[in-house]
């Protein structure tokens, strides 16, 4: 068994209005951050996965994303996996 550090990123599909991104963009603008645009805010999830190998860890994370972590009606996801260095 190996333990991996998973990093999942979930964000709203481009067609879905992101009010949070919008608000932050406006705030940045009024604070003088000219040149920042198209702000989108999503979720970043991190966790440890223990599995036989990278492949089955990937399958598990993918299933977790599809079933729970992401709602495909309005969201998309990507993830990365990295074998954890031993302490």
């Amino acid at each position, binding site marked *: 068994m190996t333990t991996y550090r998973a990093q999942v990123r979930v964000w709203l599909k481009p067609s879905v209005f992101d*009010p949070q991104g919008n*608000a932050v963009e406006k705030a940045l603008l009024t604070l003088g951050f000219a040149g920042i645009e198209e702000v989108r805010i999503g979720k970043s999830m991190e966790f440890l996965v223990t599995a036989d190998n990278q492949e089955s860890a990937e399958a598990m994370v993918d299933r977790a994303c599809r079933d*729970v972590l992401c709602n495909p*009606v*309005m969201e998309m996801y990507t993830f990365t996996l990295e074998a954890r260095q031993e302490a």
Partner: protein
Amino acid sequence: MKWAVIVFPGSNCDEDAQQAIIRVTGDEATLVWHQETSLADYDAIVLPGGFSYGDYLRSGAIARFAPIMKAVRDKAVQGTPIIGICNGFQVLTEAHLLPGALLRNRDLHFHCKMVELRVETNRSPFTAAYQPGDILRIPIAHGEGRYFADSAILHELQEDHRVAFRYVDNPNGSSESIAGILSKERNVLGLMPHPERAVADFMRSTDGAGVFRSIHQYVTEREGAHAH
């Protein structure tokens, strides 16, 4: 008839719904714990408002896996009227019993206030007591009530007359001002406003009572028909 009001950890309008049912219909209404697995005894199901599982991750996302949800699905297939109010609506969309999703309000704020709704169809077990075009005053109380669906679904909802209620003045940025929708078979309703908070004079509106009265009438008439 017998009503079930499902209680998830974090539900907080369960008792309000129960009291409203009793007040409006005089029927028996039972709180059913999310760990239960059968709803065989019930003629109508309510998924109440609240913050099931804290609404963490996405509202309704975790509740949809509760053991009781398998029974809710079965009842949906059997044609039992199922109504999801606020968080209940969110659970129903997450469970794919209704299309679309409910997102964070356009202005990012929670909104609690009396709003006006237009009844869009009375062809449903939930709205038969109203006339299309009726304007109802019913409170909203939500932070994630912006109804979203892709254009194909919105088109389908429109074509099939499955939009049950629209806001007169869109409070949250919902697509096409949608406040409540019906399933294809019309026996599942999800709506963001709280009809159980508009059933008595002191609540400043009794317009929500029609929802419970419609369901009661639908079920009792259907039972009558079966008896023949």
